[in-house]
């Protein structure tokens, strides 16, 4: 087993990885940028190396600097976390060249799965269902029409050169195909200079379901069930849960097997996540493989009691998987809410700043993976994730109430967070029914304003706190300058 690991990441995920390292008796090296000198992940490590300025290219994305730090400190392995260099094949290769173990899949698998066309071809060759569609553009309306019939309506016309929704049309009725084709072609030509289009199956309000897999170096592979990640804003997940209310044991097994086929097709090793879209008829389609630890991995840990970071490290160090598929059991329901520094009242714009007060929820079935502390200033340079709140309970209704209780206990003052927003979404009738899809927030919670049932109580609370005699206000707590005015504040009317 490794003696020392460098964690090439920051924030909550770096802290979380270091916790498992500590439990495994492995020393950790943090890396940090100038903006992160006081960050929590630096406090949790055994050693720390400054990479450079806050810009990711000068710090957390700088391969040379990270490799140099690892060599300098004598790290045997690097855990990349998620984001930053975690899916960078060049970084994985470089680690290999330098004799450092990259805790993740081989560079070849990252490369293959990062190329969407090659990945799609590999999946097709391994009988993993992919979204039906054409692989070449077509301008003959007759050929398009027969392709559309083969794919099955509704279909989506997409610009080959496209992006951003330009040249895109949903066609539900064969009679509308001609008109939509003409519009899409001309729109694409105006936007991209060329009008070529192709067809893909259109999925209406699909669910986003992903399967966690573990593959060791000896070809043994298991799946750890699904995660339902359909609740998204700005195309980014914000609430995840497992099991998914949309899966039964049969569908879970079918998707699990498809996920194992997908990673086997790519020569994958270590922890990975196979993402699928699931339509409302129970058909699922391969989307992509995330060749790293997912943000939402804790919900799988809650219902399986398996520590995924420990598995990653064990696999990277060459150990075989210690359990077989049939030993993996799922107990209860887990939900995760991501706590971002962002404002749900302004379309989730990031709001970094200083955390003036922090109190995290505690008690039965609660887990907090946090990268912040009271007094920490959230830097502007990085992803605004602050922490993740995860709950575990016997069943979905209990997990929902537990999440709502925990969110109500979670106090973050000084910056905007979506805590109150999440409480409302989790308590909504649609979420309770399990009727979640990727457009739920856009359709039902945007724009959003807090209900503010406590405004009057807040006014009285504020005013009462101002009237409290200073000597009582000290309570049992630390005496602060708020209570005991410093000479700066009080000497004004003194005769000196």
């Amino acid at each position, binding site marked *: 087993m490794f003696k020392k690991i460098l964690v090439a990441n920051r924030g909550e995920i770096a802290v979380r990885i270091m916790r498992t390292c500590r439990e495994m008796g492995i020393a950790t090296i943090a890396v940090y940028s100038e903006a992160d000198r006081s960050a929590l992940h630096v406090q949790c490590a055994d050693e720390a190396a400054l990479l450079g300025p806050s810009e990711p290219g000068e710090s957390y994305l700088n391969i040379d600097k990270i490799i140099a730090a690892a060599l300098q400190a004598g790290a045997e392995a690097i855990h990349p976390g998620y984001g930053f260099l975690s899916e960078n094949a060049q970084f994985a290769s470089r680690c290999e060249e330098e004799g450092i173990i990259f805790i993740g899949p081989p560079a070849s698998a990252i490369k293959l799965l990062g190329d969407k066309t090659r990945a799609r071809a590999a999946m097709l060759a391994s009988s993993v269902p992919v979204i039906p569609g054409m692989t070449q553009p077509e301008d003959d309306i007759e050929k398009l029409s027969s392709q559309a019939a083969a794919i099955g309506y509704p279909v989506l016309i997409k610009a080959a050169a496209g992006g951003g929704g330009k040249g895109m049309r949903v066609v539900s009725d064969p009679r509308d195909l001609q008109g939509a084709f003409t519009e899409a072609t001309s729109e694409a030509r105006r936007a991209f200079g060329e009008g070529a289009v192709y067809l893909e199956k259109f999925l209406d309000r699909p669910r986003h379901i992903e399967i966690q897999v573990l593959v060791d170096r000896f070809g043994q592979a298991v799946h750890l069930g699904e995660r339902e990640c359909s609740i998204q804003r700005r195309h980014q997940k914000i609430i995840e849960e497992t099991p998914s209310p949309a899966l039964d044991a049969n569908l879970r097994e079918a998707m699990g097997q498809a996920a194992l086929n997908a990673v086997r097709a790519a020569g994958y090793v270590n922890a990975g996540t196979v993402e699928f879209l699931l339509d409302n008829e129970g058909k699922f389609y391969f989307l992509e493989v995330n060749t790293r630890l997912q943000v939402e991995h804790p919900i799988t840990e809650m219902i399986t009691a398996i520590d995924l970071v420990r598995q990653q490290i064990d696999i990277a160090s060459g150990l075989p998987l210690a359990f077989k598929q049939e030993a993996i059991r799922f107990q209860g329901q887990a939900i995760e809410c991501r706590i971002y520094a962002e404002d749900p009242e302004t379309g989730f714009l990031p709001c970094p700043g200083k955390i003036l007060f922090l109190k995290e929820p505690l008690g039965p079935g609660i887990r907090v993976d946090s990268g912040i502390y009271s007094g920490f200033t959230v830097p502007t340079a990085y992803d605004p994730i602050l922490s993740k709140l995860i709950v575990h309970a016997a069943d979905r209704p209990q997990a929902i109430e537990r999440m709502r209780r925990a969110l109500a206990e979670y106090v973050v003052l000084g910056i905007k967070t979506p805590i109150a927003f999440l409480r409302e979404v989790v308590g909504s009738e649609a979420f309770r029914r399990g009727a979640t899809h990727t457009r739920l927030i856009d359709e039902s919670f945007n724009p959003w304003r807090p209900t503010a049932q406590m405004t009057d109580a807040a006014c009285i609370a504020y005013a009462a706190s101002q*009237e409290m005699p200073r000597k009582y206000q000290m309570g049992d707590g630390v005496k602060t300058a708020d209570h005991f005015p410093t000479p700066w504040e009080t000497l004004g*009317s003194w005769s000196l």
Partner: protein
Amino acid sequence: MEYRLLVNHEEKKLTLSSSPDLKKTAFLEGISHQYELKSIGAQEYLLELDGRLIPFYLACEDAKTHLFIQGETFIIEDQAAARIIRRGSSDDLARMVTPPMPATVIRVLVSEGEQVERSQALMVLSAMKMETTLVAPYHGRVIKINAAPGAQVMPGEILVEIEPDEEDQHGAGTNL
């Protein structure tokens, strides 16, 4: 005392009855509420409001107070001038007649209604075996004296309320 607050940009007016022996009462939009307040920590309080217990949390930043109560967060701006001591607002503070430390009142040198000059002595206090003198921060008229000889006084308590003269209005509200 009367409060004029901006709560998440919405204006709210309320009045708290401040007699220490009576049940505490807040009047807000025509409704009266009974309340009690307990301080738990530096930033944590427990409010009993109409028989219901409600913990809340406060943090101040510049002129704004962030307040968390029952899962909801409010940003409160106090519209009344410098009612209380707040870190950083030294200009206002310099204009308040309040002891800089726990002290005992020895002598009161002015009476209510009296006109005072800036720097005129108002009250003599004793603390740490030293006598010290509170002076008027600006020209004005004494409208209220809140402490008598022998009283134990604490920082933050306004001991002498002075209505400033026209030309000396800055930073002084009706509650000074």
